[in-house]
């Protein structure tokens, strides 16, 4: 069985976001970049399958991103993935999520992957399009927001629990398939120093626009949303500190919630 893990390098969640000149991107100077936290779950899930079974032949990590994104691949390799695919080309720089999904699907369609794992969402664009869209482009079933994953002994299907509003669904799916990983599935282990060293020797295949036949026409027809403007979030009106002892303050809070905010 061959597993593909899709990962993205994103600004660390504590990053202070500054809008860059031009107003369509953030200022990336000095920003700490990490593996998208939801993709960490995907990496760990793949490695745990390898540890629990004898039929996992290969775990490949794939990323689309600039040269620096290779660091994210190295982390995945240090945690236990076998090899990497790094798709990068200036021609892909302005792609939206659906175009990126199309690009990934095109690059991996002949890879013979049985299971594709990806985080449920990237914490930069916060969209979560890539997993389900890759599944659609490859004509595969997918399970979104999985919190539990169990591969059948014969490796032909799996059972997963997925989180939805107020409930957990248990679904059974035949492979090949795509799974998007939610918090609760597992936590990624820290890569050890020796493993970080070993990861440097693992192969990363470079894929550029030249490797994607008909690139222009392939991507012209899908997605195509453009970032027109980026602003700081709308500021909230300044809040009130309600004075007085707890009892008094609570009475005043309830009055304000009813009369001013009309929230209760």
């Amino acid at each position, binding site marked *: 069985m061959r597993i593909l893990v899709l990962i993205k390098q994103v600004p660390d969640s504590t990053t202070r976001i500054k809008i860059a000149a031009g107003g369509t991107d953030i200022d990336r100077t000095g920003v700490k970049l990490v593996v998208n*936290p939801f993709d960490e779950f995907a990496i760990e899930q793949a490695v745990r399958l390898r540890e629990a079974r004898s039929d996992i032949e290969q775990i490949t990590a794939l990323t689309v991103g600039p040269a620096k994104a290779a660091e994210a691949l190295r982390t995945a390799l240090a945690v236990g993935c076998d090899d990497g695919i790094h798709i990068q080309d200036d021609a892909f720089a302005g792609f939206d999520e659906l175009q990126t999904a*199309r690009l990934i699907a095109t690059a991996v369609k002949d890879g013979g992957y049985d299971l594709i794992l990806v985080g449920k969402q990237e914490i930069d664009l*916060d969209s*979560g399009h890539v997993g389900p869209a890759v*599944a659609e482009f490859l004509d595969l079933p997918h399970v979104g927001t999985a919190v539990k994953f169990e591969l059948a002994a014969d490796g032909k299907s799996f059972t997963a629990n997925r989180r939805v509003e107020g409930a957990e669904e248990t679904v059974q799916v035949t492979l090949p*398939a795509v799974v998007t990983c939610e918090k609760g599935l597992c936590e990624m282990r820290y890569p050890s120093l020796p493993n970080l060293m070993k990861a440097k020797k693992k192969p990363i295949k470079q894929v550029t626009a030249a490797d994607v036949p008909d690139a222009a026409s392939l991507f012209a027809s899908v997605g195509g949303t453009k970032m027109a*403007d*980026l602003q700081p*979030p709308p500021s909230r009106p300044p809040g009130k500190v309600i004075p007085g002892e707890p009892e008094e303050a609570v009475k005043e809070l309830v009055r304000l*919630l009813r009369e001013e905010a009309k929230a209760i």
Partner: protein
Amino acid sequence: MTDDILIFAEQRDNRIHPAALQLVTPARALADKTGGQVVACVVGDQIDTAAAAMNVAGVNRIITISNTSLAVYSATRYRTALVAAAEKVQPRVLLLPASFMGRDLSPRVAARLSAGLGTDVVELDLDGDGALEIHRPIYNGKASAKLTFARDRLAIATVRANTFPAPTDGGAAATESLAFTPGAGDDRITVKGIERAGGEVKDVAEADIIVAGGRALKNEQNFALLYKLAKELDAAVGASRAACDAGYQPHSRQVGLTGKTVTPKLYIAAGISGAIQHLAGMRGSKVIVNINTDPEAPLAQVADYTIQHDLFKVIPALTAEVRALKAQS
């Protein structure tokens, strides 16, 4: 492509998702600009009540796609159903709620129909050429992006709950049904069971009011205080990651970057510092109350009302006050 606006009217158990009803308001506004109709599509099995609930002011047509194989959500089958509706209506814009279902389904539908897609939208309009443009929070709410869509293809948007009001008046929509023809391979996903989490207690993703607790609650037992207040307010109980990781509450109640993103009408945070990853999940709430002994807690910066006292005093007092208020009215 017509000038119509299609709504995916998400239902579960024959009940329309509140966020789906709220889609009618922006859909109507768009249709008034394009000169097209608002068409709502309800997918499921035995969905008469749900379809009737979509017959509100602003909706022109309701399309039902009913089949026993659609009784519960499946990414492949619902994709096939919604694609069929979209191919019939040929809308200019398709709106879905930014719910678990809407967010799971929309990328597949967009990929299949070669559409553009924007997620978790809080503002939408048409530009001078009639192309969709939207605003959405990105970087966990730390920035607000304006996205433009290509005019020559379907534009799809999932809209954040509680962004728009639902229409209150009844409608006069014509209802038609569309037969469901499963696609090849749609049966590769089988739903084996659905278990309601937390029993009868509301889920944070569904509630209009949330009472959330942090590490300061100290243990699982103390969360009972919040459940009492939540009961009086008909609210859901949420928690910070620190509280979930410590085992005080299940992860399904976690609010934040790696928990759920919520936009309730009222969010009451008790003993939560307001780390950036927590704010990511709740800063879109309409009204925020902060109960924290520390005046410097970052949550105060997004709160409308702050009480700087011990939550173990404030929460019981608040519960009693709300109860007294209910008794009066």
